[in-house]
């Protein structure tokens, strides 16, 4: 999982496999963002899940949120080589739910091999 001072996590899978990345946070949050960063580019939002949702789907992406354990996950179904990227979670947890400031996890480097 990714948070705080943890080192960048790395996952390597084969094309067609499913993968889940985890994220934990420390205090109340109103929303968990998942960003994707391709090599040489800035992060881009791919899915977000609000505190009143347990699950959110977008195409092959599925995000979950468990407010009782203060954790979120991002799953990719049938991963493809083009899913290779760094994935970050971000919350507003440290700022009392202000929303306009986010704290980012350290990221998970996902490599999908043909």
């Amino acid at each position, binding site marked *: 999982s*990714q948070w705080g*001072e943890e*080192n*960048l996590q790395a996952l390597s899978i084969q094309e067609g496999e499913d993968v889940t990345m985890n994220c934990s946070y420390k205090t109340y949050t109103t*929303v968990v*963002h998942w960003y994707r960063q391709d090599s*040489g*580019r*800035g*992060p*881009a*939002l791919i899915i*977000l899940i609000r505190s009143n949702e347990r699950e959110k789907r977008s195409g092959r992406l599925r995000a979950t949120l468990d407010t009782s354990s203060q954790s979120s996950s991002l799953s990719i179904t049938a991963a493809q080589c083009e899913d290779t990227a760094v994935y*970050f979670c*971000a919350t*507003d947890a440290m700022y009392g739910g202000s*929303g*306009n*400031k*986010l*704290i*980012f*996890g*350290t*990221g998970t480097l996902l490599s999908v091999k043909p």
Partner: protein
Amino acid sequence: EAAVTQSPRNKVTVTGGNVTLSCRQTNSHNYMYWYRQDTGHGLRLIHYSYGAGNLQIGDVPDGYKATRTTQEDFFLLLELASPSQTSLYFCASSDARESSYEQYFGPGTRLTVL
């Protein structure tokens, strides 16, 4: 679609040098942010602003100044650059009216301090 541009894309300077990184967004977003990205630390917030003339301190502000001259333009200043400031810098913007709090990132500036 949100458009955030940064210049320069790459910069090399020497210890003690003076550097200005520029960011422009063309979507009338009120919030703008400066982050640095280092391996193992993810994205860390340096400074941010919620409008022209406003400046808020982020989580890692030491050694950095910033100025928001217009709604569109946000600058990051390193007046006495040090090797510890070698990093990848990202600018981002967001619209406080959007309940998603999505941040739109620029392509990044790679700064090397020798």
